[in-house]
């Protein structure tokens, strides 16, 4: 590929190259709503590209601050004319505002979203997918590329987690966002945006997290921001820690 990509923003392979982590870093400080109190550090904001034989699926489109990085990374990974589908884990601004720029440059066949009221702006056909909270369904998002779309109870707006079965990668949108470094991962850091948990019965939400991760062969967890968790044991540990913390902060 001819695109020049900044050294700090190269796409990072997960699961042997079936899935790539894209995006860039932001300064996580008091100007960011999900920043834990007193924290000031860099944080990756992630989108993911799932490679298939007949095309690829981009899971979220990155924040607009990273539009240049997203376009460059996609240019490095995609073959010219390669079919691309976009799948939004949430129809929120941090997930979908780069769609028009991506569509200008790449061959986007469809944009998948969940919810129903807010429809992403796209020139490609938009396809709504509905999954009841606490359940999942398999969807062929691109030719020959079937993904399991999981509707977690841990959410604010309609949210999909994406499980790619052949690699075991679970993409978790705005959950599991608390890993700051290989050594530092405090579940509380990822729950700032879910402040209502303090007044909620969180037991079913915690149970749902355990069930999602334990019932699948999850080999990597890719959050929408923060560093991924890699390896089956690490994923199980992260799920248990997050679930236990949820039970601790909830009133249930």
């Amino acid at each position, binding site marked *: 590929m001819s695109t020049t990509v900044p050294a700090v923003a190269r796409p990072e392979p997960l699961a042997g190259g079936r899935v790539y982590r894209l995006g860039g870093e932001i300064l996580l400080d008091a100007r960011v709503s999900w920043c834990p109190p007193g924290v000031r550090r860099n944080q990756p*904001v992630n989108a993911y590209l799932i490679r298939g034989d007949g095309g690829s699926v981009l899971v979220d489109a990155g924040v607009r601050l990273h539009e240049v990085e997203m376009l460059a990374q996609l240019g490095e990974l995609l073959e010219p004319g390669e079919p691309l589908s976009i799948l939004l884990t949430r129809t929120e*601004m941090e997930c979908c505002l780069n769609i028009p720029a991506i569509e200008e440059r790449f061959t986007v066949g469809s944009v998948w979203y969940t919810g129903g009221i807010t429809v992403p702006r796209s020139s490609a056909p938009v396809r709504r997918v509905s999954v009841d909270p606490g359940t999942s369904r398999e969807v062929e998002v691109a030719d020959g590329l079937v993904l399991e779309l999981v509707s977690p109870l841990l959410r604010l707006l309609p949210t999909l987690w994406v499980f790619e079965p052949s690699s075991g990668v679970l993409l978790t949108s705005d959950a599991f966002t608390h890993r700051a470094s290989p050594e530092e991962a405090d579940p509380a850091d990822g729950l700032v945006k879910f402040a209502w948990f303090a007044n*909620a019965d969180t037991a079913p939400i915690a149970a749902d997290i355990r069930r999602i991760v334990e019932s699948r062969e999850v080999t990597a967890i890719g959050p929408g921001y923060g560093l991924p968790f890699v390896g089956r044991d690490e994923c199980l540990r992260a799920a248990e820690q997050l679930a236990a913390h949820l039970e601790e902060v909830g009133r249930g």
Partner: protein
Amino acid sequence: MNDDVITPARRIAEGVFWLGGCLSAYSAGEEVHYHVSSYLIVGSKATILVDTGDPAHAPLVLAQLEQALDGRTLDYVFPTHPEIPHAGNLPALLQRYPGAVVVGDVRDYALHFPEFEGRLEPRRPGESIELGTDADSRPFRFVPAYIRDLENTLWGYDGGSGTLFVSDGFSFIHDVPASDAGSLDDDEPVHRPGQCRLTSGEMPLPPTVEQAAYGTGRALYWTKFVDVSAAFEAIERTLEELPTSFIGPAHGNVIDDVDGMLRTSLAAHRRVYEGPAG
């Protein structure tokens, strides 16, 4: 697009205009309409737009705004929180009105609209913007959002008209899919023409708890898990402090029967929390 495309801004009080339109939502294969509203407050000195509307309505909102401003300019844009129906038209508005600044809890907006970072002016709950003059004061106050999804949400209060703008709070839809409500015939049209952009007092019948619960459950998923009684106590204290004649939700008809709709909305939240049989 729907039949609201050319609907002009509606004046609901002195200096307060209701903008926007309805989007369609689907449940069990049936269509319901859902307000995506913005509100313009015109003071003698300055103007402020509460929420930007959805990009699907951008031409509509811009046209309504121009009509309601009637030759004035837009000074402030207050997106109650950074979601698409509330902030998605910021680029179009800021380009159209180059002197306008964005106020409120402006965290995250620089990630979404980095080209406008220099036009973000944070405001905290309790702070005000003066829309009038010394002789004709019209403070616009930023209020904590007692019912919200994103944490960087604020409500607003226009002291000139006594209107409380509540973002995702007090949402309801025009009608409820039969499968959810169990009260409509299968072949009965779900959306009742003519109910868009009516005040609650103008509806043929007052909004029901079911309608409010359906809107609440869609807009505020977390309320399934949380008893919001404490939030409603805070809302009632706010209403005692800030005399309120109108409540302007982003996703429901304008409320002109504040006491009655408070009861309906609280009952709706309880319905969502406890379940239909609760």
